[in-house]
């Protein structure tokens, strides 16, 4: 996983609540057996019309927001399907950070597996950042170490993040490698379980 420490990037406002993972990456892009190449499917039905032409009204098609690295979105982003293709597609498109008032649990968790930083802020702060980004004043600074988002107007907001997740994100740690270091604890657990819940063992 690529580490996330600090990011200076354009922020694109996508002022819609309850954006589900079906909208982030529609089903037809889930047939891949790879993690890469999903950028083309990102927000497909919102970005493209039925003939595959770019819709002019969609923020990521606006040249002002080309190569945005931050996305500011409405409440409850990433609800629905557990598909990790959603963070993969966002990353493949170049988005490294998403700001909202709230995220669905599975999506939130999937972000941390991939070095995509989801930042939850109170509604009025998200509003302030959203309107700043809409006004075209939109190169934001995100610093994970100090847990701050800074906007060009000088607005500076602190965000909360679980310390364990923060550490893994900063270092780009491999969760599996880390857990495997606890392999003997897992062995012990399995031995205990075989005694306490013997019916779970294959006959």
């Amino acid at each position, binding site marked *: 996983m690529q580490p996330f420490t600090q990011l200076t990037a354009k922020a694109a406002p996508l*002022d*819609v*609540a*309850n954006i*589900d993972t*079906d*909208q982030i990456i*529609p*089903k*037809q892009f*889930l*047939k*891949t*057996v*790879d*993690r890469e190449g999903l950028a083309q499917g990102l927000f497909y*039905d919102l970005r493209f019309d*039925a003939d595959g032409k770019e819709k002019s009204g969609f923020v990521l098609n606006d040249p002002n927001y080309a190569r945005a690295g931050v996305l500011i979105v*409405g*409440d*409850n982003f990433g*609800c*629905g*399907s*557990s*598909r*990790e293709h959603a*963070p993969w597609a966002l990353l493949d498109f170049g988005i490294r950070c998403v700001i909202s008032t*709230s995220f*669905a*649990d*599975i999506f939130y*968790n*999937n972000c941390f*597996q*991939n070095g995509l930083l989801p930042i939850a802020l109170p509604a009025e702060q998200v509003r302030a950042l959203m309107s700043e980004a809409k006004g075209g004043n939109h190169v934001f600074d995100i610093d994970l170490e100090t847990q701050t988002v800074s906007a060009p107007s000088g607005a500076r907001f602190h965000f909360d993040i*679980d*310390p*364990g*997740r923060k*550490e893994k994100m900063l270092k780009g740690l491999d*969760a*599996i490698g880390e*857990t*495997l270091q*606890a*392999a003997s*604890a*897992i062995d012990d*657990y*399995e031995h205990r*379980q075989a005694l306490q*819940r*013997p*019916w*779970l063992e*294959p*006959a």
Partner: protein
Amino acid sequence: MPAMSGQTLYDKIWDAHVVSTDANGESILYIDLHLIHEVTTPQAFAGLRAAHRPVRRPDRTLAVADHNTPTEGQALGTGAVADLEARMQLQTLERNVAEHGIEFLPMGDPRNGIVHVVGPEQGRTQPGMTIVCGDSHTSTHGAFGSLAQGIGTSEVEHVLATQTLRQIKSKNMRVTFTGTPAPGVGAKDFALALIGKIGTSGGTGHVIEYTGEAVSALSMEARMTLCNMTIEAGARAGLVAPDEKTFAYVMGRPSAPKGAAWEIALANWRRLVTDPDARFDREVVIDVSTIAPTVTWGTSPEDVVEVTGVVPDPATFDEPRAAQIRRMLDYMGLKPGQPIASARIDRVFIGSCTNSRIEDLRATAAIVKDRKVADHVSAMIVPGSGLVREQAESEGLDEIFRAAGFDWREPGCSMCLGMNPDRLAPGERCASTSNRNFEGRQGRGGRTHLMSPAMAAAAAIAGHIADVRDFL
């Protein structure tokens, strides 16, 4: 220090599976059962291969093919799947499970079907277990009093490699359903009413335990419907404490404990209850006698209305909700204030892990028997598994469906998400027993109204959204 309060069912299952907890409060949680399918696993197996890691417990892993599978011609095998990408994904799963020695119920095997129908049916799903699957509706298995959660592909890889998940414990929420439902009202209506009340993020960060006399009265299949929709309320897992109905359902199934092991298991399972003095972080109480048959009108499962109600008028709401409603009405092709029962439908889909079990099919048959699907409606029924299909056929339900004009298909996820060829055309309006009415979920531009199987059956006959109580 406050007095120690009792434990919830979630606390008990959690504690029984913690391998270790670090200073940041993140635990390594042991996973008893890992269900896998073709769509969310290829990248996980590729990751294992790249790191030369084996699957730690292939015996605790069960694979099915369900999301991509066509709902006809399954006997021809994956080689005959017309969609090349889908075929390749299905064949990738076949290769991966063979390489790692994982039990696989392939397309065409009568035991194959939607992963959340197959687990319980095979007796793999048991009380008190931790269960994960790379699919958000894993919450379904919570009906057995197991902690069942959807995970992403990186976590699938993590579970394959370590048989554990790294997780921070969620909060406890209790939803109590009191009273007795009116005829025509069931678990799907309970779920939609709950989501309408608390919203799609109402359960975020929580595990929900469902209790109350109305839950005790539900069959196992109806409890699965209720737990299935928990993810639509934002909670990752839903639980119902196991009881005699649970034990009776599990007993004798192929993977259920047998003989002396069954007796030991049963004694343990009887302890899977929330202590009377346990504390919940959030409580919701709903009297089910006040619930009417419920449908969705918008593009989020929280946008519900009683079947006798009308579509909301954005003019009566503040921004930004008003803008959201306008956007949804535009997508759904509905007018403010229009009675929902006046919405003419084009398609009916009865299926999905929410409502494709035998009881759902019996409820459907009870409504459509000796009636005809409206001329302009195309209606399909997709059983949840090959065994559900066989059972329905042995009861003659397929004859009733065909006589009424339904298309009777082979099992799979089908038009719940339309990864296979079953999907809506732009603008088509569908009465669906599935769980998500998101924009484009059942096909680009498709308009989905979620409802119970009996309500979908009534809509099929009427040709528009209809009150099932007029058909009882």
